[in-house]
């Protein structure tokens, strides 16, 4: 499984370290969103949608990379000083390897990150899938392709 090269060139945040926020130093107060999707085109689209809504965005191409960025990889020490500077995680459901649902479970199972709202996206309207995700703690389930009106709804979840 390829873990490398997850960031697209146009991402607005630093790629080399785990997610960190400048807000504790009185800098960027924009909400920081982690967007996870295995499809490059969709990553580009959601990134632009979020940037246009005054969000800081980091993208990841799979669940493992997302966990790495969040400081939740199994081999990483669980440190409260890292990883939790994300205001929302939005993830595709259908991804090879770790699905969005599995990623959701890991996030909700983490003492540091379980309060972070998680939104699931899917191109398929499957009620059992939607219910499963909502029951596991997803804040919202959105049908792809994403539009500007969807992102407006997302923003409301943060404040």
């Amino acid at each position, binding site marked *: 499984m390829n873990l490398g090269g997850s960031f697209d060139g*146009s991402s607005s945040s630093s790629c080399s370290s785990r997610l960190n926020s400048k807000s504790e130093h009185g800098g960027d107060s924009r909400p920081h969103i982690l967007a996870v999707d295995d*499809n*490059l*085109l*969709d990553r*580009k*689209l959601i990134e*632009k*949608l979020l940037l*246009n809504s005054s969000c800081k965005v980091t993208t990841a191409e799979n669940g493992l990379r997302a966990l790495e960025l969040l400081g939740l990889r199994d081999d990483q020490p669980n440190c409260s000083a890292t990883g939790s500077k994300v205001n929302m995680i939005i993830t595709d459901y*259908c991804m090879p390897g770790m699905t969005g649902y599995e990623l959701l479970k890991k996030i909700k199972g983490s003492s540091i990150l379980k309060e972070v709202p998680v939104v699931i996206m899917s*191109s398929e309207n499957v009620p059992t899938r939607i219910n499963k995700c909502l029951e596991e703690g997803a804040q919202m389930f959105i049908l*792809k*392709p994403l*539009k*500007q009106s969807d992102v407006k709804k997302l923003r409301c979840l943060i404040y």
Partner: protein
Amino acid sequence: MDVGQMQKRLLDYMNSLLKEGILDSQFAQLQQLQDESNPDFVAEVVNLFFTDSENLINDLSNALGQQNVDFKKVDSCVHQLKGSSASIGAQRLKNTCISFRKFCDEQNLQACLMCLQEMQQEYLLLRSKLDVLLQVEKQIVAAGGSIPIMEF
């Protein structure tokens, strides 16, 4: 041709693509995302789509040409293309993908092969239309005009 005429030409062209079902409102969403901070956004996304699609169609061709066809793999490729098509607003191509997946489920090789052909045709048609569209947009911008917003 002055900027106003070019803009009208673009709008008419977009409307015809909508009418033919080649594009849907999602494409307008894309165009609305383009701004001064990212003036080539639509072109970048479209070119990404072209590369992605061509790779997927090649993979499909190979997968369907195997002695023992792996329908799971075929379905996975079609699923990806369906996703990208939907994201860019390529309606007819997306619909071809939807039909294709049904035939994958049924493991109907002949039907899949026919779908692949249809997919290739739809893709080439879409590609030529988008090339024209992007060309006109480029001309408008070069002449100092802005891309008119499509209301759907």
